[in-house]
């Protein structure tokens, strides 16, 4: 299971006594590829642990308003699959930490599972997250991922039954992406008892490292999650500060988040 290349990286990072790792996110092509490069540089400076690079899609059903607009704008700017992988590849020179492909299934389906895995691997990807592809529909994708040393990252959600959590855990590689709450990306999540109970449930369902995403916005959120999960994922909050406060605000939040890892 070479997908565990990613798992190993995560465990090592944690071993280097970090209370929690930070995974960031950006939509490739929004607001522009230049801006994306700048974002990556700032992430690198903040010593981020992992990053998701979202491949734009015209029907982003799991995303909230801010990412919906980002996907749409990126496509309107004419970004193609080639340009996506090119950017993914170049990113290597900016950031040493693992880059994961995140995106909806259709572009992958149209490209073909085989070609997708090879191109992602060639571009230096360590794994991928396909939020609208349930594990039952992975088809040969798990095997192809293995062959290309890619970790197919699966999501666990508060609405999953214990039995389903276990099924997901059984298929997951690298780490598991726990969705903090119902709904789509973008709105705030409270760090409360109910959430922690869900985290425990996920822990019971998988031995893999656990990442938590959806609605994390601040250093305090990360702090609250230390020891509870292994990775905190921050997406919309970062894009929001970039849109509202530009580079400096973006740097500010990233520094805060990085520091909060302990």
């Amino acid at each position: 299971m070479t997908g565990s290349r990613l798992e190993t990286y995560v465990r090592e990072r944690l071993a280097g006594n970090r209370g929690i790792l930070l995974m960031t996110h950006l939509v490739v092509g929004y607001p522009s590829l230049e801006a994306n490069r700048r974002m990556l540089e700032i992430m690198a400076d903040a010593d981020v642990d992992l990053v998701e690079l979202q491949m734009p899609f015209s029907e982003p059903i799991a995303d909230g308003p801010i990412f919906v607009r980002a996907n749409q704008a990126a496509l309107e700017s004419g970004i193609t699959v080639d340009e996506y992988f090119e950017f993914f590849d170049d990113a290597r020179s900016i950031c040493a930490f693992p880059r994961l492909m995140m995106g909806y299934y259709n572009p992958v389906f149209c490209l073909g599972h085989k070609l997708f895995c090879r191109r992602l691997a060639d571009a230096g990807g360590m794994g991928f997250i396909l939020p609208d592809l349930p594990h039952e529909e992975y088809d040969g994708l798990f095997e192809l991922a293995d062959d290309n040393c890619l970790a197919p990252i699966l999501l666990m959600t508060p609405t999953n039954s214990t039995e389903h959590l276990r099924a997901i855990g059984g298929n997951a590689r690298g780490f598991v992406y726990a969705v903090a709450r119902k709904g789509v990306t973008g709105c705030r999540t409270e760090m409360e008892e109910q959430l922690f109970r869900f985290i425990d449930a996920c822990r019971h369902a998988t031995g893999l490292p656990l990442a938590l995403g959806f609605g994390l916005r601040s250093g305090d959120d990360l702090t609250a999650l230390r020891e509870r999960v292994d990775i905190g994922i921050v997406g919309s909050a970062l894009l929001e500060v970039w849109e509202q406060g530009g580079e400096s605000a973006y740097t500010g939040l990233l520094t805060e988040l990085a520091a909060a890892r302990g």
Partner: protein
Amino acid sequence: MPSSTAAAATGAQLPVNAWEELLFTGLRRGYFGDYGGAYIPEILRSTLQELTDAFDAARRDPAFWAEFVDVMQSYSCRPTPITHLENLSAAVGGPQIYLKREDLNHTGAHKINNVMGQGLLMRRMGKRRVIAETGAGQHGVATATMAARMGFDCTIYMGSVDVERQRPNVFWMEQLGATVVSVKDGSATLKDAINECLRDWAFSMEDTHYALGTACGPHPFPQMVGYFQRIIGEEAREQMLQQTGALPNRVYACVGGGSNATGIFLGFLGDDVVELVGVEAGGHGLDSGEHAARIAGGGGSPGVAQGYKTYFLQNEEGQMQHTHSVSAGLDYIGISPILACLYDQGRVRFEAATDDEVIAALRRLMSTEGIVGALESVHAVAGFLREAGQLSPDDTVLLNLSGRGDKDIFTIGDAIGDERWKQFLKDKASRL
């Protein structure tokens, strides 16, 4: 039903159970051939499971279908009649034309069949709020109507472009007590309204049901919508046998998402002698790029979006394309996986009718038979008229008139460029 499962095993088609076989005995759960499935965020898995279980229990309970039929009879006017179009038949010198009159339904289209069925299911599931997407507004009006009648809260998502095209329906939805949300994302049409519903549902699923309006979307929607809409085909088959003593040579239906077509086709699925023809929106013409024909003309290709796999109008990288039709209800990127499967099997033939052909066919239908069909529905008429010459006066065809055209007065008024109508609007506005 041993017979149908047996049939499934042998692959043979038994007229009576052909539709059950197609809907419920597929090899992969929720699939029709290569199409269908449930490509949805993990957060919705349990909700779709809950819905599937409730639906499976309901359809196995004979009382449920009986209740459905009763509601459709007493609240709408089922069975809707079939009308023999003597004048048009004589005028085209072709086959005897019969029209299945879904336009006579309460709220003016077949959409109410599916909506009332899902409403009854909601009661069983104990949901208190319903959300729905709408294109032409017919499904929105039908859902708002069902919600008012059954006492549910109701939110309708509608692309802002469609809100503009179909304002009369928006007005009625609001009068019926629904909240109408105008969706500005993407192309601001039907597909974007569907995305918005899935987003709402991912948050509200506990007390909310998503009443999808066509035979698309993730499992169990195509199956469930087809199940309720099949009432069209079952009635029509019996009525044709009663009134003409034989089955029609061909059955035509317009195809947006595919619910009215699936509904009428299912009734004739086992009758190999009956040719089934689906008519898509040809818009400004298949090579204009301004259309919504996913199969006819070969513009579409298999893909996965909005929770299911089917033929989509998309570019080679899987990004959905802009679609166009004079009828908001056919202006959609995807097509029912059930129909995609029947296309692959060669059981359904697909054609497209252009905006102009449709307007011309509507004027003909109005002036020769006194029937004002919805622009969507008239695609079936236009598709037939183009090939009427292929059949003889001894043949018969059945056209599904899925809805009435009252809602299209603004669109038709524009398309025909009626001067007095324009003047009337100017006067109205000037006096506000």
